[in-house]
Every structure is written in C-alpha cells, then in structure tokens.
C-alpha cells in the first residue's frame, strides 16, 4: 500500500468512525433510563367489595396443548392475550394465537386466531423456522401492540431467537416479523417470558434470558421507533452463570426495581436481585423464602408498594399455583391464596397485569389444555391478606 493511499484511507476511516460515534451519541439509549411509574386511578380497597372471577381464554380443544399465556390492556379497556398451542410443545404445528376481550365483567374472549405459524415466520424472516414458542404481548400507548416471540431454526429451545411484530389496529393486522440479533454466536438462545416494563422516555425494558451454555437473565431495551422505521434495541446482562432465568421485573419507582428469578439450581427457591439505576446494573441474586420447582413465576407491584407474586409453591412439582404478597419489597412473603392444587396436574407460567380500572388479571397454563384467566380487585387481596399465613 502506498503512503498516499494509506493517508487517504485514514481520512476516510476517521470520517466513518466519527459518523458511527455521532449515531451512537444520538441513539435513544444514550440517556439514562427511568421506569414509567403508572398511577392508575382506583377506588380504595375499603370502598370496594371483594371481586374475584375466573374463566378460560381458550376453548377446550381435544388433543391440543397450550402454554405460555401473556396478557395486556389496550385502549378502551380491551384486553389482548397471546399464547402458543399445537399438538405438543415444540411441534411443527404449533402456532402463536391471539384473542381479545371487550371491557366489562361479562365480556367474552373472541375466538382465537393464529397470528404466527412456523410457515409464516419462515416466510417473513426469510429463513428456515423449525418451531415457534413463548410469545409476550405488550402495549404502552394502548394503541400500538407489540408481540415478541421465540422461534427455533436448529436444535431445542436453547437454539431460540427472538422476533418482533407490531399491530396498529388492536391485533387485527400485524407487521412482518423482524429478527432481533442479540447474541454474537449464531444468535442462539435468547428467549422471553415475562412482562415488559414501559420506560419514561418511551420504549420498554423487557426481561429476557439465555439458556445455551450459560443460563442467565438479561434485559432487552427496546425503543418505540418512529412510524415506519424499525425499532432500535440493545441488551444488558443481569447476572452471569448457569442458575437463573425468566426474570420478572417489578418497578418500585423510576429508578428502583426488584427482579425475581426462576431458579435452576438444586436449591429450588425463588431468587431475587435489585437495581437502583433503572436496570442498568443488578445486585447479585440471592434466595428468598419461597420455593421454586424450576418453574416460571410472575410478580407485580400493588397499590401501597406491596409486591404480589404468582408461583408454584413446591420445590418439585407444578401441581399448585399460589399467590403471595410482600410488604417489604420482596424480603418476606405471606401466602394469601391457593388458586390451584391438584396432584399430578400442571398449573404453570403465571402472568400478571393491572388494568386502568384497578383490576388485577392473571393468566396461566391450566393442565396444559387451556389458558385460564383470573380477575380480582384490591379488596379481594386485602381480604385474603387478613386471613393469610406466613
């Protein structure tokens, strides 16, 4: 290479790197994040009558397995839910299904419709897709819906990648899937399960996890993006190692949050970590006094700063589902309700949200046959707490 060529290339290199640095500085992630703290108007628990209702989102279909339900609220109090179903978990006929429900206590869930299949994902992503899995649905404006779902091209769930779809019309039509590149090693093993947290400046902090050689929790930072342009994203690690996955994030205020982990170690107890910088860094995980049979759990912030958790209260089985509540940010817990308890059955993958009317919605896998939907209000929680056992 001649000297003048090298000099010219050095100038070009300086310009190109400067452009990249400028783009970085103006990215939506250049400022420190803060959680959006939503204070929904609600009647006080004392003024309410306890309310509790239960039903199913999915119809009973012979021979169909369903799993991994997720729910969110749209504008006007409409509820939307997604899950995956097919002949068996990981089967080639598995699709991601969508259903919605109009507001009101007696509202019925619409007939589920398939929004992602193996074939549609393969066509949209321009690559071979072997199977699809865990979907999570979320919205922060009430209008735009986001769907994050798992797909696998090779191997088992540890070979998963994440994909994003959006809908501007409450789930009637959906955009093409976009593959998220989140790992440098063949982009393997990024999965999602629990509820994303909206951020103050727009965008979301989405709890995801990795389970290939290591098994560890991460946060996917997703910006909303302008209409027509793809969303920007990045990720950060919550902990390393091979022990904790499926984080459930509970924002306590704009910068403080707690995370609760599914525990894959022989210890078999729920683990937790905390952040004081809106999820940029997390404390070392430590166990809390609740069992965990290597199963998903979900927690949510209640009025008054309490944390409500839905979990399998066992170190071995998923044959029960209970609610527990903590008054001290996750340190100590009281069991307040047993929602399911049947030996040999499976009740798993709980997912909690609160709507604008102050109701708490819980969806979970019911015997792998249906997605169950439970609704209760704060007065019911208060009543349960009074009769609670530690």
């Amino acid at each position, binding site marked *: 290479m001649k000297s003048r060529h090298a000099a010219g*290339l050095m100038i070009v290199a300086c310009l190109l*790197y400067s452009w990249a*640095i400028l783009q970085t500085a103006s*990215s939506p992630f250049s400022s420190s994040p803060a959680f959006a703290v939503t204070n929904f108007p609600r009647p006080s628990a004392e003024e309410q009558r306890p309310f509790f209702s239960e039903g199913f989102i999915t119809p009973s279909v012979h021979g169909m397995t369903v799993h991994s339900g997720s729910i969110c609220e749209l504008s006007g109090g409409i509820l939307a839910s997604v899950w995956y179903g097919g002949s068996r978990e990981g089967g080639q006929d598995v699709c991601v299904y969508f259903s919605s429900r109009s507001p009101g206590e007696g509202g019925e869930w619409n007939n589920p419709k398939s929004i992602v299949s193996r074939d549609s994902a393969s066509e949209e992503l*321009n690559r071979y897709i072997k199977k699809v899995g865990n979907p999570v649905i979320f919205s922060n404006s009430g209008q735009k819906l986001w769907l994050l779902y798992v797909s696998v091209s090779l191997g088992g769930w540890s070979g998963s990648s994440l994909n994003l779809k959006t809908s501007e019309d409450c789930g009637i039509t959906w955009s093409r899937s976009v593959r998220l590149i989140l790992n440098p*090693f063949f982009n393997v093993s990024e999965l999602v399960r629990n509820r994303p947290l909206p951020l103050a400046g727009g965008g979301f902090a989405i709890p995801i996890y990795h389970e290939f050689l290591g098994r560890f929790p991460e946060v996917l930072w997703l910006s909303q993006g302008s209409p027509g342009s793809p969303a920007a*994203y990045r990720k950060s690690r919550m902990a390393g190692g091979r022990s904790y996955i499926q984080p459930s994030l509970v924002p306590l205020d704009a910068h403080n949050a707690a995370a609760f982990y599914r525990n894959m170690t022989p210890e078999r107890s729920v683990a937790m970590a905390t952040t004081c910088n809106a999820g940029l860094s997390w404390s070392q995980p430590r166990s809390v006094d609740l069992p965990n049979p290597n199963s998903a759990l979900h927690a949510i912030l209640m009025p008054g700063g309490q944390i409500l958790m839905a979990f399998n209260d066992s170190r071995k089985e998923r044959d029960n589902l209970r609610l527990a509540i903590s008054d001290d940010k996750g340190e100590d817990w009281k069991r307040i309700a047993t929602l399911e308890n049947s030996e040999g059955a499976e009740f798993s993958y709980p997912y909690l949200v609160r709507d604008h009317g102050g109701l708490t919605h819980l969806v979970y896998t019911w015997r792998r046959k249906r997605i169950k939907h439970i609704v209760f209000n704060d007065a019911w929680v208060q009543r349960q707490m009074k009769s609670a056992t530690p």
Partner: protein
Amino acid sequence: MRADVISFLFTLLALTLGLQGLLEHIAGNMSRVNRTYWAFVTALSIVLIPVQGIPVARWLASINASVSIPLLTMLLNGIWARSSGAPLMDGKSRRTAWIFGLTGGLFLYPMALGWGSFDPYEPGYGSVWLLLSFMGLTLLLLQRKNLFGAVLVVAILAYDLHLLESRNVWDYFVDPLYALSSFVALIVPFSKKASHHTTHQKELPRQNPLNSESGKTITPNRDFQCLPFVEEKAIGWRE
C-alpha cells in the same frame, strides 16, 4: 431493501465463495480461468438448490445471523489469489486478519455465552469506547500500511450503512466462522511446522532444508496453506 434480505445476500456470497474455493481445490488440473469459472457457477448452483423448498444458502442464514466483513474479504482474497495467481492481501495483512479473528473470537464468545458477569457483546450496540478502540486499531494498521486496516474501513462502512441484519458493531468485525477459520489458519500451520521440524531433525540431522540450490535462504509461505480458499498452489514458496 430489507435488512434480512441484504444480510441473506451476504450469506449467499460468503457460502458461494467458500464452496468455490473448495471446488477449485478439487479441480486442480484445469486451466486457471476455466477452473474459476467452473467452480463459481457450480458453487452458485449448489447454494441455490432448494432443500425442502428452501435454498441451501438460506439454511445457512437460518443458523448464522451474519457473515462478518473480514471473513468475506478473506474469502474474496483467496478466490482472487487462485484465479489471478497473486493475492490481494500480502502475507502480513493476512496474518493480521487471522490474528484479529482469533483474538476477537476468544475475547467475545466465551463471555457472551455466559462466562462471567461481563458481556462484551453489549458495548457493540453503541459504545463510544468500543468504536474508538476499533478506530485506533484501524488507524494504526493503516499507518503501518497493513491492508487489513482497509478491511476494517470497509467493515465500519458496512456498519454505518446497516448492511447486515445486526445492529451490533461486533457482528461486522467478527463472526464464529471467521474466528474458527482464524484458529485453523494460525494453529494448524504452526503444529505442522513443529511436527515437520522434529521429523526432519531426526531423519536429516546434517542437512539444512532451508537452503535453496541458488544459495539463497527461502522460507515457506506461512500463510495458512491448510485452508482451501487460501492460495496454496498459486503462491507456493516465496522468497
């Protein structure tokens, strides 16, 4: 054009070039031009063959997110060397490329897959310090007239233009196949040389194998004859 389509074209090109290198290696006796033409057409045909309705290249795209710019450049360099008889990149630049690939892979992959709490992939989404580090390396290489610096310039250009599906700068500079190729390119010749040296010392203790008939000292082309896409026959031994 959509990012996944552009990314697929990169994968298609990389797979075609890799396969072309292998085929040229097999078709050793053909004339240089015929060999290049035949190998390219055959390689392109193979990667476009549909298997279960999906072209072979798309299968590769299914399991590998992207092909880095240095790997693509090394493949191009190998093909060019075979067809023209002279490589685009000199030995020093190629050695730098392999060292960069191996070092990048060793730094990136173990930690990205969970070894420890630090994830080096994370800064790739937009760390000024990482970009400044790559910039410093690029300028240093160019200042030393190392052609691999120009490869890094192409890589950052591709990043600025979002030519790959990934938004992470690491994916433009390193990929697993590149790291593996770098390992093979650096380690195998080294072990062969060590093995050859030991054998030669035992069998011919009084002969100096590095002296040519003309009396000049020659050295083997150490630039990784083990890889099919590297110009083994085109260059051979060099003074």
